[in-house]
């Protein structure tokens, strides 16, 4: 009986394991292999150990891209998740036609491909197609440009905030809906206000959902590619290594440096892994202290 269980269990896992092997482990392994090779002068490849990685860690273009997505994430993720959480707390207590409409419309950008979102916002940002330049300039700013070197990163973070706030709000809202009502009905009886309940009772209870959205946001941010790539037509802010992914793409497909591109991809995967692990460890420890 036990053996039969074991065999059946594995049988059900097989298709999944095949896909994991073919499309996750094999490419990771291959990237690792490629990253330890380099072109030789006579043609062909030779083993160079960690040379490509050593190079990547001192490559100013790569490091600048990493730094950029880090700073981007440090600013954009907290703003987005703050908005998502506030929205979720509101629709958790207000149940009207307006709040249901809001819930649906806030989620809608999730169904819009990143390419289309970038195109639409690109048009909205542009001086000839969109209203915003005119609006900003009528407020007093002179020669405002959403695509200038300084402003562009905020223009991108607005697109990403637009796309993902509703999605994260729905995840947090679902967690709120899963809470047992008795917990905060006791607080109401004790005379707590809505805001007190939200901060003292609900927020701690949905910590895990917020953590989940944080981790997904980090993973997504480190991989930013689509928005800057589409909008590069309008701006000269998007350099060769604007984000690590854009860099790796250009290295591989514009410069044919596959070995170094593999090292960059692999380093990116490790950085994502380490950052999420750190976030998990920090939040776990915090939970224990409380």
């Amino acid at each position, binding site marked *: 009986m036990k053996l039969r269980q*074991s065999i*059946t269990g*594995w049988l*059900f*896992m097989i*298709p*999944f394991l095949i*896909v*994991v092997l073919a499309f*996750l482990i094999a*490419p*990771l392994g*291959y*990237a690792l292999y*490629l990253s330890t090779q380099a072109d030789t002068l006579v043609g062909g490849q030779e083993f160079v150990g960690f040379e490509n990685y050593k190079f990547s860690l001192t490559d100013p273009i790569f490091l600048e891209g990493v730094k950029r997505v880090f700073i981007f994430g440090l600013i954009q993720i907290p703003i987005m998740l703050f908005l998502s959480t*506030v929205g979720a707390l*509101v629709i958790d*207590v*207000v*149940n009207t036609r*307006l709040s249901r409409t*809001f819930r649906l*419309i806030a989620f*809608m*950008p*999730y*169904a*819009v*491909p*990143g*390419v289309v979102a970038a*195109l*639409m916002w690109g*048009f*909205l940002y542009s001086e000839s197609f969109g*209203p915003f330049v005119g609006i900003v300039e009528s407020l007093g700013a002179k020669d405002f440009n959403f695509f200038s070197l300084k402003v562009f990163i905020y223009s991108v973070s607005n697109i990403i905030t*637009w796309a993902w706030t*509703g999605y994260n709000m729905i*995840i947090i809202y*679902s967690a709120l809906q899963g809470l047992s*009502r008795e917990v905060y*009905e006791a607080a109401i009886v004790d005379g707590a206000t*809505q*805001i007190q309940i939200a901060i003292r009772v609900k927020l701690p209870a949905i910590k*895990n959902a917020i953590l*989940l959205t944080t981790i997904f946001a980090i*993973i997504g941010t480190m*991989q930013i*590619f*689509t928005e800057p790539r589409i909008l590069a037509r309008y701006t000269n802010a998007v350099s060769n290594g604007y984000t690590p*992914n854009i860099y*790796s*793409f250009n290295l591989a*497909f514009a410069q044919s440096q*596959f070995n170094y591109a*593999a090292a960059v*991809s692999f380093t990116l*995967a490790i950085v*994502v*892994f380490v950052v999420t692990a750190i976030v998990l460890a920090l939040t776990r420890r915090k939970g224990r202290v409380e």
Partner: protein
Amino acid sequence: MSLLTKNKKKHGYLAPHSNTANLVMILAIGYFLVPIVWVVVNSTKDNLQLFSTFSLWFGNEWHLMDNLKGLMTQDGGLYFTWMRNTAVYSIASAVGATIISSMAGYSLARFNFKGRSILEAGILAMVMVPATALVMPLYLMLSKINLVNTPWSVILPAMLSPFGAFLIRVYVQESIPEEILQAARIDRAGEFRIYWQIVLPMLRPALVTVFLFSLVSSWNNFFLPLVMLSENKYYPLTVGLQSWFAQASQEGGNSILFNLVIAGALIAIIPLIISFIFLQKYWQGGINAGSIK
């Protein structure tokens, strides 16, 4: 019972904050709708009006039909090839991902076997692997077996869904009691029949969720098809629209392609938005199962 308490809650304590909350929600609705309104409004304009009329309101002429006609005929109807490609790629990978992760999730939740705990930890680790880091090595691998620039190169990798397996596992644990499976086994039902006839129907809400999320992620995917596909007859909408947009920007403002990019963007987002409106109950319920844990 929860219905009762819910209703009580609705009336009890909300009134004081409602006005602020309503204002915030109205502003937010406006923000989320702006780009969509822009696309709808501007898909009715020709190139001249695009530049000359106020961008968030309709012009004095109506060119929606001309733009749609242009969309259908440009490059020999290429847009609808892209539309069909997108539908085929994303439905195929979503069906595959749903079946594969339902089997894996069911196995993890209800079978005891050696190595299971390693697999469970592995799945969580897999969720954290950035998908784009896999694309370049995958391209090189697939080019060796002549699979790049084929639909398979886009469909097969998208069947990988560790998060789907995780979601199904949680759902099985919460909603499929061990006793039902034992009863079926006593009746000598085969394991695959139990999965097919008992487990799958009970999993329906979770399956719809995994299906929808895989569908959206491949429908919206840009990086994978951009790398894998080189002939435009294989492009999905995302890569195709991008290529038109690149052409339009190169030719400057005179290009007819701007209208087509806008009309194309509008048509591209309609199917998913409509399915999300109709399937609201499912995706909300399904997310619920995943996030409580």
